[in-house]
């Protein structure tokens, strides 16, 4: 049952990820990417990381993808005629990606020997994650807040138009 669910979610994730790359319209790419993120959230639920699945849906499908969609609408990119690389460059890209896949699978093969299952379950709950985050990872947590502040200030500074002729 769970294996069938895993196969279904994986197939959907890989298919919609491919459609992100190969669809002509950028708006369709964003929508396929949202499907990919939902299937990845399903994988998190299968992996007993329920809280992470909820956060993933909120952050990615709720915030980041809306930002992408908003920028695409703002830039008026929803036309089909967008620039494409030449065929030989596309062929080279596919070959390079296939070689990378072979290297990744080959180098990560045999990992199951180091994974040993111990019986404890339920590390995906809010209580466990909160204890780990606020005891062991308190300093990185605070640094993350500084990073978000810096990103916010940077985005505002970059997005601010110069005082003269601004069109957007």
């Amino acid at each position, binding site marked *: 049952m769970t294996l069938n669910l895993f196969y279904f979610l994986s197939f959907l994730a890989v298919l919609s990820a491919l459609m992100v790359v190969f669809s002509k319209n950028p708006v369709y790419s964003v929508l396929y990417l949202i499907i*990919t993120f939902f299937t990845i959230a399903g994988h998190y639920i299968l992996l007993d990381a329920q809280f992470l699945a909820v956060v993933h849906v909120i952050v990615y499908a709720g915030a980041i993808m809306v930002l992408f969609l908003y920028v695409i609408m703002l830039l008026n990119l929803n036309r089909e005629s967008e620039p494409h690389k030449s065929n030989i460059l596309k062929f080279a890209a596919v070959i390079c990606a296939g070689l990378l896949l072979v290297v990744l699978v080959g180098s990560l093969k045999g990992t199951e020997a180091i994974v040993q299952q111990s019986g404890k379950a339920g590390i995906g709950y809010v209580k466990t994650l909160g204890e780990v985050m606020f005891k062991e990872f308190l300093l990185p947590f605070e640094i993350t807040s500084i990073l978000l502040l810096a990103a916010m200030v940077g985005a505002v500074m970059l997005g601010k138009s110069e005082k003269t002729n601004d069109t957007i």
Partner: protein
Amino acid sequence: MQPQNGIPIDYYIWLAAALFTIGVLGVLYRRNAIIIFMCIELMLNAVNVLLVAFSTYLNDAAGQVFVFFIMAVAAAEVAVGLAILIMMYRNTKTTDINILNRLKW
């Protein structure tokens, strides 16, 4: 090697490798800067899947905390990157990355 949900960890490794490769393929294949950003998000998510899988299978919650940090970094990266993209569109009226070749060589 059979965890509580009955899926071997090899399957998650293959899934994450496939998603990461598709992200790399998108970066190499497309010329639209927004699609390239989306493919970077795809690569980050492939790494997240692998981190969560190993965290569950090894019973170590540190991996899931790392996924939180990766999500925060991804949000910051998207905000700044899209601001840069809007600046670029304002100056060149396109999102084609071949226009931005002044830093080449």
